[in-house]
């Protein structure tokens, strides 16, 4: 199937997108997408061409992505707010045939030459484009399951950003799994808050495409503003809200009535660990339990989630049906029940590899479809997954694994510590040693005494470096590489 067809059968009058006061019906969306297909076709876009979509959470993104897929081409979503050098680097990595732009086109236009591909301004495309005599609208092209639909930049927090290749079936299979979930469900009657960036797999597939697939309504929020989100949720009686931890944190303390979230049927968090105090704050104030999930760009993205099961704070939920998950030792042997190891995943959502990077692909993806996530986790006896750390963040001291999260948690318990990040540094005798980067008013001596009373000796930092601020990505993930 071609993913572009997901909007084709819905009632023409039902609302697909709400953008400010503007409501766009499925009928109108289909017309706009058809117009955009015509426009992109004129630029020579066809099967397997690449179209970079530089847009935020705006109708232009939706139109550009679906038009690209409809022509059989591959869409490359890129955050519209990226600074110019980063944008140039990202575009170079994917060499698009056309750059389709939304609102960001205004400030990008003077840089066209630098960006290396012709521009198509999606904001000027409306129904009239096709009616103005540009020839017949190209039909939606047939695509096989394994044909590529999206190239996703896995910016993440790793230093070596890679481009993940996702097929039509990768994404559609996850959508089916979400829609088929029998307890919460998702239907055309639902409204979903579109605030997670569509250039990220969570916002793209779990929020945008899955909602379009069932004919639900997506209320777009172009720029995050906690108070405005809550207004949108209340005004439109939004039923599905997915956010990243920093969003939930701001919603927890936003100025809003305590019934602001009363319409929500499902609240989800992903992209980084949700701190327990945020979970408690949202539950205590709004009566909503946030279900955490776990996934990666490479898994389209859901591996585990908390929908349809009792929410267990601190865990990232249970395996999505149809996703095989095992926890393994470094040699690939499954660990014993209840032990910690690397999370390895196989599902129809697992990607097709990294673009132009066979070695990087071979390092994580086996021929029989198992994807090695690089994340350390453990299942409890009830089948709930708990994340520990990234493998490459583990510090090995005299052969013992030190999980930075454990040391950071202890440091954060000190009243004078605002933030803490633990990394490894080479050490002549023990292989590596633990170094703590701390923001706060404590002294190294105080912290040393505090930590020694609470942790085994090999886990205690041998060096404290005091910083004003710790580097944090917008998703809430700490950027450790900047501290190594």
């Amino acid at each position, binding site marked *: 199937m071609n993913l572009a067809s997901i909007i084709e059968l819905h009632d023409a009058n039902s609302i697909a997108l709400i953008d400010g006061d503007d409501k766009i019906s499925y009928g109108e969306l289909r017309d706009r997408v058809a117009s955009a297909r015509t426009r992109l076709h004129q630029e020579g876009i066809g099967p397997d061409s690449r179209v970079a979509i530089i847009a935020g959470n705006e109708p232009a993104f939706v139109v550009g992505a679906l038009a690209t897929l409809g022509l059989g081409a591959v869409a490359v979503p890129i955050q519209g707010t990226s600074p110019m050098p980063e944008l140039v680097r990202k575009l170079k990595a994917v060499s698009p045939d056309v750059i389709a732009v939304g609102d960001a086109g205004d400030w990008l236009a003077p840089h066209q030459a630098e960006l290396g591909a012709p521009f198509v301004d999606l904001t000027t495309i409306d129904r009239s484009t096709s009616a103005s005599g540009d020839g017949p609208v190209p039909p939606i092209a047939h695509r096989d399951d394994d044909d590529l639909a999206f190239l996703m930049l896995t910016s993440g927090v790793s230093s070596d950003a890679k481009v993940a290749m996702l097929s039509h079936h990768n994404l559609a299979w996850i959508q089916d799994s979400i829609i088929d*979930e*029998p*307890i919460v469900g998702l239907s055309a009657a639902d409204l979903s808050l579109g605030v997670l960036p569509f250039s990220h797999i969570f916002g793209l597939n779990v929020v945008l495409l899955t909602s379009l697939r069932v004919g639900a309504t997506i209320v777009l929020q172009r720029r995050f503003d906690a108070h405005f989100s809550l207004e949108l949720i209340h005004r439109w009686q939004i039923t599905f809200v997915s956010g990243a931890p920093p969003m939930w944190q701001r919603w927890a303390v936003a100025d809003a009535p305590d019934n602001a979230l009363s319409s929500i049927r499902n609240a989800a968090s992903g992209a980084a660990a949700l701190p327990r105090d945020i979970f408690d704050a949202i539950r205590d104030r709004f009566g909503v339990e946030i279900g955490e999930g776990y996934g990666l760009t490479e898994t389209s993205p859901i591996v585990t989630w908390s929908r*349809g*099961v009792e929410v267990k704070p*601190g865990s990232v939920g*249970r*395996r999505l*049906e*149809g*996703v*095989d*998950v*095992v*926890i*393994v030792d*470094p*040699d*690939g*042997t*499954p*660990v*014993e*029940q*209840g*032990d*910690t190891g690397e999370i*390895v995943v*196989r599902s129809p959502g697992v990607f097709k590899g990294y673009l132009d990077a066979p070695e990087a692909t*071979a*390092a*994580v*993806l*086996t*021929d*029989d479809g*198992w994807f*090695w996530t690089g994340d350390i986790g*453990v*299942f*409890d*006896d*009830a*089948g709930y997954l*708990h994340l*520990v750390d990234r493998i490459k963040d*583990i510090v*090995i001291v*005299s*052969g*013992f*694994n030190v*999980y930075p999260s*454990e040391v950071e948690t202890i440091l954060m318990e000190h009243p004078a510590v605002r933030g803490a990040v633990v990394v490894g540094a080479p050490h002549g005798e023990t*292989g590596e040693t633990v170094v703590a980067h701390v923001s706060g008013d404590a002294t190294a001596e105080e912290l040393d005494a505090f930590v020694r009373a*609470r942790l*085994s*000796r*090999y886990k205690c930092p041998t060096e404290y470096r005091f910083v004003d601020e710790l580097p944090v990505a917008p998703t809430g993930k700490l950027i450790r590489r900047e501290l190594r």
Partner: protein
Amino acid sequence: MTEQPTFRFEAAPELPGADRISKYGFGAIRKLVDRLWDVTVEGIENIPLEGPGIIAPNHLSFCDSVFVPAVLPRRVWAIGKGEYMDSWKTKHLFPALGMIPVDRSGGDAAQAALDTAASVLEGGHLFMIYPEGTRSRSGNLHKGRTGAARLAARCDAPIIPVGHVGTLEIQPPDSVTMKIHKPATIRFGEPMRAEDFGDPTDPRVLRLLTDAVMFEIARLSGQKYVNTYAGAPEQVEGTKPSVPTPGSRPLVPTIPSGRIDPAPTTNGGSEMAHAAVSELAVRT
């Protein structure tokens, strides 16, 4: 060396070894160990004189299962193969040493062993378990299995790490006799509790506690630690494991699927094997 507390032969009629043969047999073993070997005991004050406790020693030699119980101020129980009860040579000796026979064939063996161990601890007794699961053939201290930590969390019992030196010289691998008059040192560390490593119901605590116990054992025994299971191939020293190439990776078994099935969804529960109660104290 601290002064030895008086030995108390705990009456535990619900457990094996409560009979007179065991009582006198174990008394004789204690005396023999005292007279035939030069055993130094350190940290004996770390053994709780009442209430439950998990004795967690390193494992180098068969005779570990004799020496550690023989120097404790209380009786200690452990799990051993059911087959020992079929041999006239061992059917009196092993219960005297506190062995509880558990049939280890079949899928529920591990769970049965775990439940048996838990019942010993819940009765307020000491239970001995080798966290490495089996004897170390390399002489290094190997990665711990999580059974001891699991019991500690389940039964709210402290783990007493034990590091001993010298038993390998007394009874080398594959030797059936023990060389007398040789020295051995047995060191008991401070009790460790699951709750000090986080919420005991958090599954992450099992590995954190296990690793911390192994670190203490390494400190007490002076062994080098290697982060692979005893019996498994060892990693090259000082390197992090690189991601193996697909060809070198064994196939990972498929996990049964199921939307909200009550059973654990991964690394199947019945496959706990010897994990839960690792290798138990008395075995060859």
